[in-house]
Structures are given as C-alpha cells and as structure tokens.
C-alpha cells in the first residue's frame, strides 16, 4: 500500500474513499491466512526444536535432511516471512509516515527476505546435500 496523505477534509467527507480498498483487504486476508498456517508452523517448529536442540550435525541432518520434514519446514518459513512483513507493516504504518516510513518498510522487506532465504537455503542444503 502506497500511502496517501490523509487530510482533515478527507476524513470529514465520507465520499472521499481514502486508503486502498483492494490492498487493505488483501493485507487483512493475507494476515489471517498466513496466521492460520503459522499455527501449524509453531507445532512443527516445536517438534523440530525439541528433537534437535543442542544436537550435533549428524542428528540435524538425519531429521531436517529428511525431505518430508525439511521441505515443509522451508515452505512454512516462507509463509512466516510473509506474515512477519505484513505484521511489521501494521506497526510501521501506525508510527511513521513519508520517506521514513518508506525507508523502514524497505528494511522490513529486506529483513524478511533475508530470514526466509537464509532459512530455506540452509534447509535445502541439508535435504539435498546433507
């Protein structure tokens, strides 16, 4: 959503439909959908962390290297990254505006991409190359 500057007149006049109806609805639906999927992610993550916390590499490879565990976890990580970016946008929209908002939103996107790419790359490496 690219923000428009909302003036008093726009707020006072119900005929001005400020904001982006499409993008805002998509934001809402995306957040609900990814949030519901994240419930599965949390249970899955719990299983993986409990099974592997503090373990050595052979154990990590044995569990995460199994495609039935590593690949779904990678897919869920991407969903989490989308949820993270969407949620952080809500926060940034509340407290920042203008070019500072756009800068922070850029950093937000970069961080989420970094987390997703690092996690997915690590999992793909474990699954396909051990």
């Amino acid at each position, binding site marked *: 959503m690219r923000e428009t500057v909302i003036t008093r007149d726009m707020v006072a006049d119900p005929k001005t439909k400020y904001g982006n109806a499409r993008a805002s609805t998509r934001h809402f639906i995306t957040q*609900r959908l990814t*949030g*519901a999927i*994240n*419930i599965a992610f*949390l249970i899955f*993550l*719990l299983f993986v962390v*409990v099974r592997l*916390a*503090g373990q*050595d*590499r052979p154990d*990590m*490879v044995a569990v*995460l290297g199994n495609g039935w565990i590593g690949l779904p976890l990678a897919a869920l*990580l991407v969903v*989490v*990254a989308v949820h*993270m970016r969407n*949620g*952080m946008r809500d*926060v940034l929209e509340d407290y920042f505006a203008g070019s500072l908002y756009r800068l922070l939103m850029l950093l937000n996107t970069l*961080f989420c991409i*970094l*987390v997703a790419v*690092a*996690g997915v*790359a*690590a*999992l793909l*490496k*474990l699954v396909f190359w051990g």
Partner: protein
Amino acid sequence: MTVRSRPLSPHLQIYRWTITMTMSIVHRATGIANYAGMALLAIWLAAAAWGQEPLNLVNDIYGSWFGQLVLFAFTWSLIHHMLGGIRHFIWDFIIGMEPGQRETLAWANLVLSIVLTLLVWTVFVWMA
C-alpha cells in the same frame, strides 16, 4: 526567566488500565519479538547447514543461561502471539465481543500462554 510547567492535555494516562488493552499491546510487542526471534531460527539452521564448528558455537550460545532465558521468553512470545491470533479469529466471527466475554478471552490468553509455555519447557526441556 522562570519557566512554569504548562498544563497538558489528557492523553493515555487518564484511562483506566484494562486487561484487553494490555493484551492488545502485548500482542503487538510479542509480534515484534517474534519478528526478531526468527533470526535466531535462521542462524541455527544456517549454522547446521554450514558445518559442525559453527553449529557448536551456536549451540554454546543458545545453551548458555542467557540463551536459555531468551529461548524461554521466545517460546512464551510465540505461544502468546498464536493465542492472540486465535482470539482475533474468534472475534472475526463476531463471537466474544461483549463486555465480560472479551475480558475473559484476554485473561485466558495470558493464563493459557503461561501454562502452555511452562508445560512445553517442563515436559521437553526440564524433564527430558
């Protein structure tokens, strides 16, 4: 010239602190904490993919008392945010919005998050 303190217009501090607003604030705070915490997961996975030495380093840091404290807080943060999300799903069906009901939901959110976190750590960490 002396400067007298000027009267301020009332802001957040004039409102009675309620459990619903607290859980709303905590939902946002845990969301931000989870956001940062996901980096810990990515670092752990990357270290495992990299090799035994980086993994040893990460395991030492995460296994230290401070690392364990952070991971315990992260567990609570994730569970609280998930329960808060489920609360929002309930509200999406226009259920539980009446006075009393929403307070019950907010308290349930807090109590369940603590109970589940302690349960997870008791069963999987302290007794394992």
